[in-house]
């Protein structure tokens, strides 16, 4: 391994670090003041790059690049301000998870807006005037622009630091980060402050995007890709720490650069291509950091911030006669589906999708609702179940029923390992560690071709024996899903379910009463992972194949959306949410190229109109009807 290659990659790494830092810094500042985890943050980065390319295209040569960057920063800041005024302002008091849902919906809308504005083709911008040359370093040629980028990160860091400590605006940001209400009570117009902070964060992200112009084309996949990177960086550095974000960005970028520079290494006689690790390097670093420092490198245990307490969940009540009737009717409907299949051939297929989605969502809800742990990587257990069953079935040649047991068992085993680390973390950190584990699983599946079939996945996973007929398999999966849902419901009412709620309601109180919080959460995580694995197993057999797509971030987010759409505070929520989401995806969404915007708009409408999700909305209506009926 030559030293010059290492140095070269290191400088390259610093240039990449600047890009990561710019996105992460804006995310961190916005989170600090508004307490909103802005899922749409990557969209501002993407818009920054698109705008810069578009503007640069229309300007004469020496001004094209720099003009594009300037306009991009100004416009993304402006869009940020508009978004704050129109959307965020309405959801500051909503529960944290609904804010996530709303900003995620915003990301979908912005992605389709970009598709509409710029079309599906990638767009490449010009190089920076004055920085098109190279310098020689240790016999290799380094682009001027990489050196400029490597310096841009620290420059923005210093500028932000100065802004935060030396200016009144910065002091206000720091004060509002701790207690926004008090800032207002001291005569500061906090509404304007919030708008300004959001514009600042969005503008920095826009700058980050625009500065990538000479390095990568503008494309529609950037938002999600960059969002993942930005989260990782913010979490490694510690939420709210700008300095931490820079250090984390450098670590992540350097580890990736090192992996590339090292290439294939021999370890104990085995050749291993280190560059394969770049796909997961940042997640490995994050997992490692979070296990050692649960609040990131520079983060502190949750500061005593004032967040509006979200409405407390009501105690659990068994279903009344009306509810039981409705539940039996739903069960009968699903059981009768094969009969309907004669006249509507598509109905059983759709019902099968709904069933799998229901178990996927209900298993996530178990840890997210009663457990208070929102996993951002639930698809990992879906994938482990699906791949586990498919591998056992195809390669080991076990029977279909045995595969139906092995798949969930493998997912459960994964949950045993990942859960042990994850349940020790809280809130966003828990979410990010679960996401990291899911990415690690995804990357292994993607790269371990001998076992998983790589990017193509595994084929020919068709059920055999009694389950071979579509009706037979449908009824079997219906029975399994029903059993899974009933078990989860039974657990919620059991002492164990209440211990889980106790740990969520007040960890201090639960510990003082002698409840082993970590064990309770761990077991809940394993149960949820196992049942999610069952959903994945059914999925593999229903589709006859499985690909890495099933473990992607997008799938994990689908599960979150289903739970939130249905209502996280109700045990029935995930059932409604999964059904509605699947039906929408299978019907309306197929009809338009702009399905993301449609879905996003729908999600925003749910957050603004039915903050309790579908289940919350239904019980509101029921309560209103009862009151109306009770009146003389």
């Amino acid at each position, binding site marked *: 391994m030559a030293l010059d290659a290492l140095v070269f990659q290191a400088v390259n790494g610093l240039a990449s670090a600047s890009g990561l830092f710019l996105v992460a810094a804006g995310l961190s500042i916005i989170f600090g003041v508004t307490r909103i985890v802005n899922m749409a943050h990557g969209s501002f980065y993407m818009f920054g790059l698109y705008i810069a390319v578009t503007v640069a295209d229309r300007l004469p040569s020496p001004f094209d690049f720099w003009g594009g960057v300037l306009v991009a920063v100004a416009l993304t800041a402006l869009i940020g301000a508009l978004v704050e005024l129109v959307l965020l302002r309405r959801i500051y008091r909503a529960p944290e998870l609904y804010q996530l849902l709303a900003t995620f919906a915003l990301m979908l809308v912005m992605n389709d807006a970009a598709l509409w504005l710029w079309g599906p083709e990638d767009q490449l911008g010009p190089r920076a005037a004055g920085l098109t040359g190279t310098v020689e370093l240790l016999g290799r040629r380094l682009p001027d622009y990489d050196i400029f980028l490597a310096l841009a990160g620290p420059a923005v860091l210093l500028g932000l630091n100065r802004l935060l400590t030396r200016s009144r605006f910065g002091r206000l940001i720091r004060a509002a980060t701790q207690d926004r209400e008090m800032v207002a009570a*001291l005569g500061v117009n906090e509404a304007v402050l919030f708008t300004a902070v959001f514009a600042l964060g969005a503008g920095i992200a826009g700058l980050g995007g625009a500065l990538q112009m000479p390095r990568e084309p503008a494309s529609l996949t950037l938002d999600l890709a960059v969002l993942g990177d930005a989260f990782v960086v913010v979490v490694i550095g510690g939420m709210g720490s700008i300095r931490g974000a820079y250090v984390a960005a450098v670590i992540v970028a350097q580890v990736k650069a090192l992996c590339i520079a090292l290439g294939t290494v021999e370890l104990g006689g085995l050749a291993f291509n280190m560059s394969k690790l770049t796909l997961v390097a940042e997640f490995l670093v994050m997992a490692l950091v979070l296990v050692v420092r649960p609040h990131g490198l520079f983060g502190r245990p949750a500061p005593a911030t004032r967040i509006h307490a979200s409405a407390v969940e009501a105690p659990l009540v068994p279903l009344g006669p009306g509810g039981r009737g409705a539940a039996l009717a739903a069960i009968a409907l699903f059981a009768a589906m094969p009969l309907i299949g004669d006249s509507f051939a598509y109905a059983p297929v759709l019902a099968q999708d709904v069933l799998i989605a229901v178990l996927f969502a209900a298993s996530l809800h178990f840890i997210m609702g009663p457990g208070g742990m929102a996993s951002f990587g639930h698809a990992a257990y879906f994938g482990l179940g699906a791949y586990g069953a498919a591998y056992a079935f195809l390669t080991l040649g076990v029977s279909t029923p045995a595969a139906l047991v092995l798949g969930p068992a493998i997912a459960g085993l994964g949950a045993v390992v990942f859960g042990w680390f994850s349940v020790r973390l809280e809130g966003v950190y828990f979410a990010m560690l679960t996401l990291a584990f899911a990415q690690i699983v995804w990357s292994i599946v993607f790269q371990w071709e001998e076992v998983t079939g790589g990017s193509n996945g595994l084929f020919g996973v068709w059920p055999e024996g009694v389950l071979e007929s579509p009706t037979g398999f449908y009824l079997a999966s219906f029975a399994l899903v029903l059993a899974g849902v009933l078990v989860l419901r039974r657990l919620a009412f059991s002492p164990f379910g209440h211990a889980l709620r106790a740990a969520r309601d007040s960890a201090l109180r639960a510990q003082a009463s002698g409840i082993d919080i970590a064990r309770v959460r761990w077991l809940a995580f394993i149960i949820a992972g196992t049942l999610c694995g069952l959903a994945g197993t059914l999925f593999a057999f229903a589709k006859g194949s499985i690909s890495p797509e099933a473990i992607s971030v997008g799938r994990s987010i689908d599960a979150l959306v289903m739970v939130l759409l249905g209502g996280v505070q109700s045990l029935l929520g995930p059932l409604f949410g999964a059904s509605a989401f699947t039906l929408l995806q299978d019907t309306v969404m197929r009809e338009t190229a702009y399905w993301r915007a449609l879905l996003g708009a729908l999600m925003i409408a749910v957050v603004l109109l039915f903050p309790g999700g579908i289940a919350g909305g239904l019980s509101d209506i029921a309560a209103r009807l009862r009151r109306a009926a009770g009146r003389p």
Partner: protein
Amino acid sequence: MSETPRLEIEALDAWYGAARILFGVSLHVGRGEAVALIGRNGAGKSTTMKAVMGLVTRRAARLDVEGRDLRALPTYEIARHGVGYVPEDRRIFTELTVAENLDIGRRPRPAGTAPDLPDWTPQALFALFPNLAEMQDRPGGAMSGGEQQMLAIARTLVGQPRLLLLDEPSEGVAPVIVDQMIHALHTLKRAGLSMLIAEQNLDLCRSLCDRAYVIEQGELRWHGAMAELEEEALFGRVAPTNGIM
């Protein structure tokens, strides 16, 4: 000097979410007057102050400061109209230094301010709270409860208020520091500030206040001169003798 009171409230109702906390509270605070608002925890003292500041959902027939209607104003405008709010648990910005905390509240003296009110420059404040002068660069989080309370009052004063809403200034503060605080509040009163003080410490009220209102379950039960307030009339031990209800 006109006769318009500094603060005038008529029929104030307030809510916390769905729960109604205040029921038709009416009170006034005159110029240079210190008025005690006395009652148990949960009686509605803090809510009254938060309602004045617009920090809870509220409705009132009248909510005026120096004749200006506050009802439609956002919180920050209310503060700019000369209302200084010192909340119950101080709510110091712990990450900011003493000097930075003061800077958040700082506001130039409005042009029309009555000449009898002092201009609260940092120097004037440090004369009032000598402790603070010595710890200007200390983070708010590294201060004792009593020091934080002083800072909370000082941080409000730099906004040049004409009316102070003090919510339980002695709660959680060592008795020695309470004595110092009473001294400082006397100085402020002499300087012409009006004060509404929510307090459970009767000695503090007796030493400082001219009049008192007793609040219970969100309704005013008694009001009169501080000297007439019998301890037994408080806290529901004996039925109020000359209640206004």
